[in-house]
């Protein structure tokens, strides 16, 4: 187990990195967090004096795409985060220790850094059958999660699994997979949704916590405001086509070749809070819309259950048939329209016969 009390600066110097490079890193991080020029020296100071934050990284029901994303971070580099900035004391897929050795680290961290370590959770616990659908170290994952959460400082809910439930919680959710904030209610939880979250968002968040020793400002849903306060739509480079009314109608039409807005192809950019259109992916190379495909809305609650990814209007299943709001609305309005017409016809017929009756009586 690494010595968690060592500072970031101590580690980085030991690795043969020059002080100049260290300051370069601080400037870059300050820039990517949008903090301004003074913050670079604050970051440097913090990393020189503060002990590294111990992090326990646990995996529940998940696909490890969050970890896959995390290790591809460019600013800062994943290796800098894991080997230098934080003291990543437990992360089953990438740690050297295994079996009882690995499990011992959990107990040790709990005892030694009570209330000081950050618990990062990838995936979520299934609650059905006493949590038996996810066994980790011989115990249901939910028990392990509850135990480690008890003494943690804060919890990072990595990805849509931990934040909202994701695919394993999609209907009918047979294992009763449950997002972290529904299981742990007495700790601050930061949701970092996305399937997976953007690598730079993940590492920048870790950098923020280690630098300032506190959690970033969160929005109503518990997501860090600095990355989740705007929709894909708000910063989309295709937005001018949306405002102009220029839409792709089919995947291979002229509009698609022109790179028009994918609104009518079911793009969920207007309802999705994430940083893709600003930060982009793979060191800023691209993001789905730039590659010509609409946004899935993967960082939103229950995105698997909102019908086809290619529909503008969500199908509504509560009516027993799959129909969208327009189909249901038109059917209802049509039925009422027919009823009105029939009612009017009967009214007219009754008036006519009534008049005839009266005329006959008078005669």
């Amino acid at each position, binding site marked *: 187990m690494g010595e968690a009390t060592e500072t970031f600066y101590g580690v980085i110097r030991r690795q043969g990195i020059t002080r100049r490079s260290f300051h370069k890193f601080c400037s870059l991080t300050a820039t990517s967090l949008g903090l301004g020029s003074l913050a670079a020296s604050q970051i440097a100071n913090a990393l020189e004096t503060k002990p590294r934050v111990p992090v326990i990284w646990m995996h529940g029901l998940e696909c490890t795409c969050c970890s896959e994303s995390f290790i591809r971070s460019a600013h800062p580099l994943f290796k800098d985060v894991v080997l230098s900035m934080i003291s990543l004391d437990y992360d089953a897929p990438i740690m050297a220790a295994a079996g009882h050795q690995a499990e011992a680290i959990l107990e040790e961290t709990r005892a030694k850094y009570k209330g000081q370590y950050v618990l990062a959770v990838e995936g979520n616990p299934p609650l059905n059958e006493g949590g038996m659908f996810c066994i980790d170290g011989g115990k249901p994952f939910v028990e392990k999660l509850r135990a480690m959460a008890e003494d943690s400082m804060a919890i990072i809910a990595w990805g849509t699994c931990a934040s909202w439930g994701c695919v394993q919680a999609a209907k009918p959710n047979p294992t009763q997979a449950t997002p972290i904030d529904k299981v742990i209610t007495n700790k601050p939880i930061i949701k970092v949704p996305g399937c997976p979250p953007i690598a730079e968002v993940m590492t920048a968040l870790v950098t923020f916590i280690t630098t300032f020793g506190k959690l970033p400002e969160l929005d109503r849903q518990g997501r860090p405001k600095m990355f989740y306060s705007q929709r894909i739509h708000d910063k989309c480079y295709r937005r001018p086509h949306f405002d102009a009314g*220029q839409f792709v109608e089919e995947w291979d039409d002229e509009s698609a070749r022109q790179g028009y807005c994918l609104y009518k192809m079911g793009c969920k950019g207007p309802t999705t809070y994430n940083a893709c259109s600003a930060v982009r992916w793979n060191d800023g190379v691209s993001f789905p819309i730039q590659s010509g495909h609409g946004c899935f809305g993967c960082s939103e609650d229950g995105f698997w259950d909102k019908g086809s990814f290619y529909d503008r209007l969500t199908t509504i299943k509560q009516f027993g048939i799959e129909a969208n709001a*327009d189909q249901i609305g038109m059917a209802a309005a049509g039925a009422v329209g027919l009823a009105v017409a029939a009612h009017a016809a009967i009214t007219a017929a*009754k008036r006519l016969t009534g008049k005839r009756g009266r005329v006959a009586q008078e005669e």
Partner: protein
Amino acid sequence: MDKSPQALTATVAVDPVRSASSERGVVYVYEAPVRLWHWINAAAILVLGLSGYFIGNGIPTIPGKTGDNFLFGYIRFVHFIAGYVLTLGFLLRIYWAVVGNPHAKQIFYVPIWRKSYWREVWHEIRWYAFVAAEPKKYAAHNPLAQLAMFFMFTLATAFMIVTGFALYAQGTGNDSWQYRLFGWVFSIRPNSQDVRTGHHLGLWMIVTFALIHIYTAVREDIVSRQSIVSSIIFGEREFRD
């Protein structure tokens, strides 16, 4: 004295002096602010419904340079303006329900506690089902109309205002007053796609309401021997027999 619209109506209908003195009874029902509101509100709903349908489904692609066009932006702009008109109108209408005449309160409640109310609703259902031979006379809305007004118009409009401003807040941002006032909608439905679906269903609820509303108004004007359509223009209800 019971000041409820029904009670007033009853007095009107059976007042022997009135019917003796003149063949035609006339009651002042819709005060000027209510009439003005009704027509502004109707216009706002028409604009909102049309622009909203296009916003929900998109429009056929506009040819030409992107920089020269802003049609979808204008459609959304018109939707937002009409939304503000509808909302301000609705708030002023609530104010008028407080200070206006008893009829002005009618669309904001259903007297579910009153047994006679349900009896009269039943009578109206029978009248519309061609079972009852004669309609009862009411100065303002009949009990069945009041029920429909409350659920299909008043509640539906309130729902549209709340969800509409919540969705609008997504554009104005998390620091806007719209988000502070209506952001709670996303605590109930975190995925705003659900809110959009609900808002869209609301459109069809109001379309359905408009169909019934216009049909029954015209029909009662002809069949029930009382003025309906001219009442919301000139304010007075005339009983023609």
